[in-house]
């Protein structure tokens, strides 16, 4: 890996994996998508213009959506993979949160993950998703409330 790609992978890898997991609900497929995005960066195919994080989140989104479209059948994706680490190290807690996240509508889950674990502002998240910041903020608030209900 070139220095730049390695640095980007180190800096944004966790956030991007979380986002890919939110979109795909399958950590293994999410990791594959993430690798694909970075292989494109390494090949020099990535037209990173401006802030790399914005490009990377969008690239992960597009690649993940292509992956979903490529699925030949509706698959209830595996819940086995753990992509969140609980502060107390408990796998059960992490799995419970992941399960709760899976129960959110896709758009709300996407907004929550971009804001909480992607550490993006509403403006940045809106640019990634391609909607207005108000829409992302609204999805985020609804998602957070619903998640709080589900995951007690």
């Amino acid at each position: 890996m070139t220095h730049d790609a390695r640095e980007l992978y180190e800096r944004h890898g966790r956030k991007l994996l979380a986002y890919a997991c939110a979109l795909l609900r399958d950590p293994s497929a999410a990791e594959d998508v993430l690798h694909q995005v970075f292989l494109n960066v390494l090949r020099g195919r990535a037209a990173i213009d401006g802030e790399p994080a914005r490009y990377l989140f969008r690239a992960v989104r597009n690649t993940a959506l292509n992956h979903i479209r490529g699925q030949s059948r509706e698959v209830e994706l595996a819940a086995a993979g753990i992509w969140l680490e609980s502060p107390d190290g408990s796998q059960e807690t992490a799995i419970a949160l992941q399960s709760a996240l899976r129960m959110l509508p896709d758009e709300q889950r996407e907004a929550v993950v971009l804001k909480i674990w992607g550490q993006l502002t509403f403006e940045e998240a809106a640019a990634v998703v391609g909607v207005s910041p108000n829409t992302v903020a609204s999805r985020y608030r609804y998602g957070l409330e619903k998640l709080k209900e589900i995951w007690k």
Partner: protein
Amino acid sequence: MDELDDFEARLRAFRPRRPASIPDARLQRLRGPIWVAVAAGLAAVMFVASRLQKPAPEPAQPLPPVTLGALNALADRPDALDAALAEISRTTLPDITRPGGVLERLSKF
């Protein structure tokens, strides 16, 4: 609102796990064409270099021994004798007509 802020903070305490490194096999596929290009480049350089090298001079053929008997045998065939003497002189005598040769030097006196 405070409740949601607390909940948000609780969520932030979770950390996404670190993704695995990109598998070597996938990186290798990426490197493949580069190495092929390098190998092809080296092969091309070696080919051109080998073509530019002057061919090694061929070793001089050992002359057949010239014997009086052999010349006598050709005496009754003047054409064959002339050809044999011309061949012997071509290979044994210095070329005085070559540039920088004896004739050229003498012509300067």
